[in-house]
């Protein structure tokens, strides 16, 4: 994959905030997002997700490393020509109406009057703010503000879209509305970079996911890759496996754990799983279900975070 094909490219990025405590927010991040890809960056609060995006948009300056957008260094003003941004906790000036805010940000991106006439009503319609467009933003609900934020990020038809916690603080109904808009935007061929700590959101929308923990990119891959766990299996039994049974299983499995009637096994090869099932059947345990090979994104995330904390 050549560098030119990358919409977002980050190499060895470090950020140490000035100040008394001198927070080391990013500790050497390497990351690439291809054009047209939908990338989700997961991480706890304070992991450094927002810092990463802000460096890409030149709102915050990196301490070391490089960041590029569509092949341009992110410090260049024109790198932001085709980039849209929905900041987390954004605040529209409250003297603006939905319409005037759209006009204002469109003009800052040098969208022509003709284009604005076409795109602004179109986008307000898309995010369902057509009827509220003439009202002052201060009267908007959190969800409406968030949808307006999405519309302003799209107003200049950007090739790359940064969304920082787009559903943070929004009630479930509002969240579903935003997700609908995102799913529609998803089909338009834009590169989307989504910051979130909400796993379900990322799972539904993203092609590829990175997990940022304490300023480092701990894991990265498609959701397929991340959640596939070779050798892990879940067996549903008709009763809980007793201690003696577990001891016997340990002769064949690397790891044995029970959660009520659920039995979790980790084995080196599939033949070992068969031997475990044989052992269970010998002791007249009824097998009610067998599934495996896949952890939920949540499990992967929690495991990764735990691992990082330990190391």
């Amino acid at each position, binding site marked *: 994959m050549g560098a030119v094909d990358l919409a977002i490219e980050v190499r060895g990025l470090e950020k140490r905030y000035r100040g008394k405590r001198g927070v080391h927010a990013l500790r050497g991040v390497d990351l690439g997002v291809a054009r047209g890809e939908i990338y989700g960056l997961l991480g706890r609060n304070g992991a450094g997700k927002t810092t990463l995006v802000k460096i890409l948009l030149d709102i915050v300056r990196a301490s070391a490393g490089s960041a590029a957008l569509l092949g341009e260094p992110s410090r260049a003003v024109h790198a932001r020509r085709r980039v849209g941004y929905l900041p987390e906790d*954004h605040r529209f000036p409250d003297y603006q109406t939905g319409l005037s805010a759209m006009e204002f940000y469109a003009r800052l991106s040098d969208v022509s009057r003709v284009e604005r006439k076409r795109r602004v009503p179109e986008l307000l319609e898309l995010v369902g703010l057509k009827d509220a467009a003439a009202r002052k933003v201060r009267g908007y609900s959190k969800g409406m503000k968030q949808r307006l934020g999405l519309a302003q990020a799209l107003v200049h038809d950007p090739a790359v879209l940064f969304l920082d916690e787009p559903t943070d603080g929004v009630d479930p109904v509002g969240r579903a509305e935003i997700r609908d808009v995102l799913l529609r935007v998803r089909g338009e061929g834009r590169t989307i970079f989504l910051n979130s700590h909400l796993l379900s959101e990322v799972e539904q929308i993203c092609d590829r996911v990175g997990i940022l923990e304490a300023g480092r990119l701990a894991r990265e891959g498609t959701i397929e890759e991340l959640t596939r766990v070779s050798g892990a299996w879940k067996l549903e039994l008709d009763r809980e496996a007793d201690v003696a049974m577990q001891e016997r299983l340990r002769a064949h499995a690397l790891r044995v754990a029970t959660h009520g009637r659920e039995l979790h096994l980790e084995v080196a090869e599939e033949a070992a799983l068969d031997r475990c099932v044989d052992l269970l059947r010998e002791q007249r345990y009824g097998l009610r279900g067998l599934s495996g090979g896949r952890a939920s994104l949540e499990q992967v995330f929690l495991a990764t975070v735990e691992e990082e904390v330990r190391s």
Partner: protein
Amino acid sequence: MNVLGAILKDSFHEARDRRALFVVGLMACLAIAFCLGLSFHERDESELLALHLSRLGKFEKQSSGGQFLQSVGFEPRLEPTRRILPDDGFDPSLAGGWTLGFSVVKEGELESLQKAWIEFRGRKNEEAGDPLRWVEQQLRVQGWQKLAVRRDPADPLRYEVGALCTRKERLSGAYRASIFFGLVQTDDEINRSREEFVLSIQLVLAGALLGAIGIFVSLLTCAGFVPSMLTKGTLDLALARPVGRTRLLLYKYLGGLWFIAITSVVVVGGTWAALALRTGVTDLRYLVMAPVSIAIFAVLYAPLVLVGVITRSANVAGLAGLGVWWASSLIVTSYELTSGFAEYSAGVRGSMQALYTVVPKTSHIADLGQRWLIEARLGGAEGVGRMLDEVRQVDWAFSLGTTAAFTAACLALACWWFRRADY
């Protein structure tokens, strides 16, 4: 252009939302209404001569005890006033003047009037001179320059006055003005021509615009513009756009200037038009007050932007703007009053000179505007000379140069700070 236009418009939206536009608009309306409420009346010279003559019996004097008035019954029968003709027999120096015949009721009335006047003035032992000369003297006091009073040889009760005046503004009661739609009449003797009167009103308005009211309100109105742009969560939206930070901040500065420019054009243009409507004086020079007030604001808005960028607080920025304004006025005034601290030690003098060089000299910009307004109007008239003296003499090039440097330095520092910060 798109970006600049957007930011100028946004500043206007912001000012409108703050109700600042309402306050500023109200003040503009008040100033314009004041001008509309003015009226200026002028009396003909012929009318004035008759008026002055009929007032011969009304005495007044100023003394340490205040002003004393006394009225003696003197009601001469006045004939119509008319231009002096060559065959009227007056001295040729009175040519172009006015003549007026009048008759007293009984013989010797003029002499007793003169005696009463001497008594009123408290000079009992004074020899009463020729009553005709006394009448001339009384009329001279009213502003007439050349006078001749004579008896009618054919009628012992009838007299004739010849009078000439080349400077009408000196005649008492020549002009009258009223303000607040006639509710307040000015003194009968304002001794100002129409142009001078309008000029004095314009100077009052200019003083208010350039000083206490205009600049004060402008600074407070625009103090929040930069901090509101820098509000957390708002700035991100703008910084993600392909606009450099220097450009963003300078345009925001221009946004404040734009709002004030529109306001001052409305106030200056409106008061000018109202004055022109009411007095017929259409001299355009007063309009220079619009660019002058914009220039003063441009200077004081720069430190306000700087402090706004650093503290991100509208209140602190507003106070800083006012502080720079007052402190610099204080320094400039005291520097001028003490002739550059000439009588102080070298250390004090040196540091005050340095301070004087650095601070903006907005009062000089105001002076420059007022000077242009006064100088150009009515070249040599006496009252104008007096007004001119009130305007200080300063080294304009030095003053304007250092003021511009101060403004540029504040803006440069603000841009530097804004460019280097993480948001």
